[in-house]
C-alpha cells in the first residue's frame, strides 16, 4: 500500500451524491493527476458525514478542514490553494447562519459539538468499499476476540450488561433477545438484520449501511455466534441501490478474507450472510411480517406468540435486530459493557441516531447521547428554525409517533420519557415543524401513509385507517361537525386496541397527539362551532339542536 500525506474525503452518501458529489470526486482526482500530486494525495469517497443540508461535504485530513457545499468547479481551488499552497479556501468554509462566524474544523461546528458518534463512528471516516480501512480502525477485532476468547454466554452477558436496547423503535433489550433465541432447541437458527427502513423522512440505517457496511456484517457474525446461528439474512429495501451495492462489495471482501464463511479465525464457527430485497411495504419493518417477506410471501404480520425467537424463518428460531443496533455491538465488545452503560440515562444506554429534517436549518444525520434534550438537538445542533420562524412542534417516531411541543422540549430524551410525553423514540425520524404548518394537515399526511401501508390483514387497521382518513378529509374540507370529532376520537381508540400489529396499534397516534396539543386547529375547521374562542373553548350545536359547551 502506498503512503499518502493528505487524504481528501468526499461524501458519497445519497444526499451528497444527489448534489453532484460524484463530479466533485472525479474533478478532484483529475486535477490532482494533472498537477502531479496523485502519488502524494489520495481522494476517497466516504459514507455520510451527516451534515446533509450543507452537502456535498469535503474533508481534508490530517488538516481537519471541512468544506461545505462544494461544487464540481470548486475542485480546482481545493487542489491549487489548499493542497498545493497550503491556504484554506475561505469561501467554502461553513458559516453559522446568524453570526456569520466561520468554522475551520469539524469540531468547531455547532452541528458536531454535542454529538457523540458510536454507531456512526466510521461514517465519513473510512472508504466503505475498502475492508482494509475498516480493519485499520479495529474492524473485525471484536469478532476475533469473541470467537477466540469468549463463550456464547459471555457474549450475551456483555450485551445484556451494556443495557443496549433495540434501535428500531421498540426498545427491547438486545441481550435478552439474544439469550431467548440462544436457549431455543433446534440446530438451525437465523439472525436477521432489519434494514427495511420505511419511516418517511428517516435515513439512519441507510447511512450506516452506505458508510460503514462492515460494522453490520461483523456484528451479525457476533450475534450469530451468540445465538448459535450459522446463517444471517439482511432484509433491505430495494429502493436503496447504493446501500445494496456497498453491502455486496463488503460481503465479497469479507468472504475473500475468510471473515465470513467456514471456520472463521480458525475456530469451529462458520457463518455467512445472504441479502434479501424488500419490495416497498412499510409493514415489513414488523418482524413477523419481515420474516414472511423473507420467505417470498406477502409481508403480513402474524399473531404473536409464537415469537420469531421460537418460530421464525421457515419455522426456525430467529433473532431480528435493527441496523443501528448491530452497529453498536463491535464497540461494546471492544470497550466493554461498563463504558457503554456509562453513556445515557438510567434505563436507556448509549446513543441514538436521528434523521433531523423538516423546517430546520441544519438538516442531517445526528448521533447524540441519550438524555440530551430536544431543545439541544433542535437549537444547538440543528441551528434553530429556518427563516427565523417560530418553532411549533417536532414529530418523533414517524407515522407511529406523536408531536412534541415547546413545553416538552426540555425533557431529557430516552425510550421511556418520550413515551411519557405522548410520542415515542421510533427508529429515529425527527421532523421539525414551524408556525406555518397546519397540524391537521400533518395528521392527515401520516394517516394517508398508514392507510396506504396497512397490509389489509386485520379489519380494525384496514378499514379503520381508511375511515379515519375520510373523517380527517371531512374536517380539512370544512364539512365536519362536533359529532364527527367525537366519532373520530372513538375510532382512534378502536384501531389502537383492535389491531394485530404495531402498524395499526400506533396508526392513530399522530391524530391523538395533534388533537391533544393543537385542539384549536381542529376546532377552527369545525362548521358547527359557533363561538370559537382562542383558548380552545367553544360552544357548538349538535345535530339534534342541543348545545355543547367546553
Amino acid at each position: 500500500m502506498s503512503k499518502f500525506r493528505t487524504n481528501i474525503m468526499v461524501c458519497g452518501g445519497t444526499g451528497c451524491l444527489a448534489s453532484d458529489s460524484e463530479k466533485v470526486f472525479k474533478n478532484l482526482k483529475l486535477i490532482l493527476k494533472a498537477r502531479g500530486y496523485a502519488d502524494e494525495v489520495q481522494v476517497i469517497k466516504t459514507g455520510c458525514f451527516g451534515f446533509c443540508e450543507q452537502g456535498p461535504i469535503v474533508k481534508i485530513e490530517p488538516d481537519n478542514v471541512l468544506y461545505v457545499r462544494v461544487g464540481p468547479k470548486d475542485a480546482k481551488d481545493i487542489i491549487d490553494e489548499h493542497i498545493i499552497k497550503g491556504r484554506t479556501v475561505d469561501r467554502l468554509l461553513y458559516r453559522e447562519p446568524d453570526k456569520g462566524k466561520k468554522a475551520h474544523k469539524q469540531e468547531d461546528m455547532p452541528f458536531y459539538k454535542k454529538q457523540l458518534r458510536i454507531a456512526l463512528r466510521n461514517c465519513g471516516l473510512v472508504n466503505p468499499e475498502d475492508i482494509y480501512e475498516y480493519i485499520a480502525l479495529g474492524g473485525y477485532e471484536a469478532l476475533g476476540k469473541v470467537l477466540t476468547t469468549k463463550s456464547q454466554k459471555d457474549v450475551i452477558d456483555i450485551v445484556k450488561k451494556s443495557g443496549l436496547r433495540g434501535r428500531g423503535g421498540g426498545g427491547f433489550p438486545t441481550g435478552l433477545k439474544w439469550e431467548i433465541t440462544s436457549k431455543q432447541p433446534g440446530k438451525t437458527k437465523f439472525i436477521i438484520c432489519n434494514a427495511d427502513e420505511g419511516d418517511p423522512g428517516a435515513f439512519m440505517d441507510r447511512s450506516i449501511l452506505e458508510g460503514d457496511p462492515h460494522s453490520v456484517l461483523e456484528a451479525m457474525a457476533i450475534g450469530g455466534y451468540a445465538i448459535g446461528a450459522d446463517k444471517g439474512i439482511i432484509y433491505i429495501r430495494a429502493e436503496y441501490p447504493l446501500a445494496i451495492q456497498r453491502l455486496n462489495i463488503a460481503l465479497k471482501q469479507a468472504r475473500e478474507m475468510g471473515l465470513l464463511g467456514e471456520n472463521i479465525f480458525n475456530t469451529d464457527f462458520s457463518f455467512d450472510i445472504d441479502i434479501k430485497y424488500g419490495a416497498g411495504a412499510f409493514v415489513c419493518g414488523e418482524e413477523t411480517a419481515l420474516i414472511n417477506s423473507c420467505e417470498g410471501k406477502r409481508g403480513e404480520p402474524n399473531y404473536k406468540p409464537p415469537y420469531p425467537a421460537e418460530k421464525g424463518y421457515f419455522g426456525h428460531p430467529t433473532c431480528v435486530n435493527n441496523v443501528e443496533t448491530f452497529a453498536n455491538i463491535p464497540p461494546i465488545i471492544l470497550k466493554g459493557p461498563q463504558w457503554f452503560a456509562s453513556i445515557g440515562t438510567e434505563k436507556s444506554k448509549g446513543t441514538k441516531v436521528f434523521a433531523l429534517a423538516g423546517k430546520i436549518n441544519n438538516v442531517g444525520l445526528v448521533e447524540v447521547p441519550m438524555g440530551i434534550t430536544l431543545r439541544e438537538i433542535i437549537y444547538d445542533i440543528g441551528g434553530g428554525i429556518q427563516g427565523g420562524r417560530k418553532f411549533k412542534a417536532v414529530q418523533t417516531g414517524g407515522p407511529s409517533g406523536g408531536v412534541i411541543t415547546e413545553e416538552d422540549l426540555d425533557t431529557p430524551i430516552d425510550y421511556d420519557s418520550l413515551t411519557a410525553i405522548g410520542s415515542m423514540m421510533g427508529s429515529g425520524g425527527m421532523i421539525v415543524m414551524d408556525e406555518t404548518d397546519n397540524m391537521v394537515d400533518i395528521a392527515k399526511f401520516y394517516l394517508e401513509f398508514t392507510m396506504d401501508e396497512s397490509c389489509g390483514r386485520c379489519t380494525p387497521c384496514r378499514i379503520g385507517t381508511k375511515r379515519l382518513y375520510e373523517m380527517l378529509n371531512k374536517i380539512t374540507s370544512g364539512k365536519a361537525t362536533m359529532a364527527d370529532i367525537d366519532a373520530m376520537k372513538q375510532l382512534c381508540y378502536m384501531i389502537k386496541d383492535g389491531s394485530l400489529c404495531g402498524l395499526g396499534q400506533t396508526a392513530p397516534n399522530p391524530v391523538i397527539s395533534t388533537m391533544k396539543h393543537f385542539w384549536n386547529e381542529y376546532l377552527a375547521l369545525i362548521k358547527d362551532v359557533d363561538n370559537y374562542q382562542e383558548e380552545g373553548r367553544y360552544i357548538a350545536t349538535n345535530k339534534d339542536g342541543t348545545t355543547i359547551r367546553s
Partner: protein
Amino acid sequence: MTKPAEISAAETANENLPKEKFEELEKFINGLETTKGALIEILHKAQDIFGYLPRDVQLYVARKLGIPGAEVFGVVSFYSYFTTKPRGKHTISVCMGTACFVRGADKIIERLKEKLGIESNEITEDGLFTLKDVRCIGACGLAPVVMIDDKVYGRVKEEELDEIINTYRNQEVKH
C-alpha cells in the same frame, strides 16, 4: 431443494413479450440454488427484464415454480415496488416523505399532475413519462426532491418544473 418445473419459455411468448426475455428469466430461475422462498427475488428479476409484470409473466413464474397464479399475483399486488403496467420512457418520482411534505412536495406533485395531464402511477399519452409518488429517497437535506430516472433534482420550486420536464421532451425531439 425445491427445483423449478420443466416448462418451455417459448409457449408464453408473444409479440410484446419476446421469447428472449422469457429465456433470460428461465435461465435465472434454473440457476437458483432453491426456489423455496425465492418468489420475491424472482419477481424483482422479472421486473428488471420486462420493465413490468404483466399477467403472462406472472403466470409463467407461477407455472415454473409450481404454485398457484393467485399466490404470485398476491405478492405482486402487495408490494408497491412491483407494477403490472408498462412504464413510460422516463419515471418522474416525487418524494412524498415527511421532510419533503413539510417543504411543499404536495404542491409539486399537484403541479406535475396538471402539467402532464395524468394521475400518480399513470403514463403520459406520448409514453414519455410515468409519474410516481415515492416514500423518502433519503435526500432530506435537499427537500423537496424530484427524481427523474436516476437523476435527483433538489430544492425544486414550482416554477422550475416546466424547464425540467422540457429538458426531457427536447431530448426526444433531437433523436
